């Protein structure tokens, strides 16, 4: 059996993914303990508490992280938990607006500047978090992503710094990311938090989960799908599970074919 041309692999992969979206199989998604732990921690937040959402990702991370951001925002609004979005990545503000564009209209009684704010990107990486831990208005130069003054917002009358946050969630596709939140907010200030990271970053963040520095972990798109099911709002992540399943199967089939060809050639030689 000769080596399979990579274009055949690509075509089969496209066909499998398209098929999964056109003919959903509805495979059951079991919810992991890690996702349940994260969800339970946010569910336990009292009304009026502030949850900080670190939108530390770029458009490439949208499929895996945005569904979790929406689900967490939905959960917070249902429980009257306030949400402050901030980010160390350049596109943080735009990512936040995408979440608000879809989710805010579901809560017409919730008001921007009172119940949620999108501060957006501010430069400084970990330094931004350090300054926000002292004074969030100064760290954000008193302006949010929409150009509005933070000092004029009722939310910031009570919430003056990240020290007063009840919980943080870092949605991250790389660096700066989770380690900065743990280093600046989680460990020194003792504020619990969790993360949703892209699948490739799951292994490197598991030590933080084991050491208790992260309260559970939302693992990539699978974790986002689980979270959507926990808040009873299946969305894009859940819809993507069938495609992910078939994609994995395609890869495994080609790995098996490759090894069959390899072993056959080896035996003949």
């Amino acid at each position: 059996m000769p080596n399979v041309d990579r274009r055949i692999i690509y075509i089969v992969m496209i066909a499998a993914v398209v098929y999964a979206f056109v003919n959903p199989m509805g495979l059951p998604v079991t919810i992991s303990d890690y996702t349940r732990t994260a969800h339970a921690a946010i569910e336990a937040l009292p009304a009026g508490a502030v949850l900080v959402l670190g939108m530390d990702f770029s458009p490439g991370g949208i499929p895996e992280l945005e569904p979790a951001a929406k689900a967490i925002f939905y959960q917070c609004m249902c429980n009257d938990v306030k949400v402050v979005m901030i980010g160390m990545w350049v596109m943080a503000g735009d990512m936040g607006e995408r979440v608000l564009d879809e989710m805010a209209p579901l809560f017409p009684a919730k008001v921007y500047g009172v119940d949620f704010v999108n501060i957006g990107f501010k430069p400084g990486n970990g330094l931004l978090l350090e300054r926000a831990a002292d004074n969030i208005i100064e760290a954000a130069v008193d302006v949010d992503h929409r150009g509005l003054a933070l000092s004029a917002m009722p939310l910031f009358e009570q919430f003056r710094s990240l020290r007063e946050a009840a919980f943080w969630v870092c949605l991250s596709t790389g660096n700066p990311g989770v380690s900065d939140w743990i280093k600046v907010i989680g460990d020194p200030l003792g504020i619990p938090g969790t993360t949703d990271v892209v699948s490739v970053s799951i292994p490197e963040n598991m030590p933080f989960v084991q050491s208790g520095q992260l309260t559970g972990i939302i693992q990539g798109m699978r974790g986002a799908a689980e979270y959507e099911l926990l808040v009873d709002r299946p969305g894009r992540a859940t819809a993507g599970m069938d495609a992910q399943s078939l994609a994995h199967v395609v890869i495994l089939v080609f790995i098996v074919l490759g090894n069959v060809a390899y072993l056959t050639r080896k035996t003949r030689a």
Partner: protein
Amino acid sequence: MGLIRPGLVASFVLELAFAAAVLTLIGRARRGQPVPAIRRVVGLDAIDEAIGRATEMGAPVHFAPGIGAIDNAQTLAALSILSHVARMCAKYDTRLIQTNRNNVVYSIAEETIKQAYVDAGKPAGFNPDDVRFISEDQFGYASGCIGIMAREKVRANILVGAFWAESLIFAEVGAQVGSIQIAGTANTHQIPFFIAACDYALLGEEIYAASAYLSREPILVGCLIGQDWAKMIGVLLILAGAVLATFGNYDLGRLLNE
């Protein structure tokens, strides 16, 4: 202790101990005392082979120092390898295409390569158009690089530094165009992709050993050995902590959290 932030005393002491270990070995090397040898790093040895292969084929070498900024230690390690690669390419009149995602790194890389050609006695051989800033955007940089790899038909692809999601894109396209590939990063989430798609992979701290390994300067080698001493201290602490914790004693852990 009022001078040091609470919860960081043990870390501060350990960092001082680490610095002491490294500086001790540097001192030994400076005084001409012998320092232990370092083991072979296959990936670093392969750099010369890769450049040689590209030279034989009359094809260019491509070097990417990752997408990290200049304050990233991996980028500094990449620049030290670039210096060696540029010298080799200048010596053998092999075209070197060097791509950058970061403006500051681009300006330093340009100076590094220019100096290498001057040192090789071939200042006219340096082509500033072959040192390129592609884009600050991660995937803009990735698409620019893979376009260059494919159009210029590079035969040696050296990817060392801080890489993220674009690592597999580089490695796979390099494999498709038939390049010999040497890659290295300390970003643990990208190491598997480099192992799968490249001919040689430098894992984690091996990229930091490059300047010492390639130059064999006693001071740099001494620094590397000091780093290993510090790692041994870390291993002993881990073992001690694991044994104590197994018997229900967590005092060492508490002490290190002071």
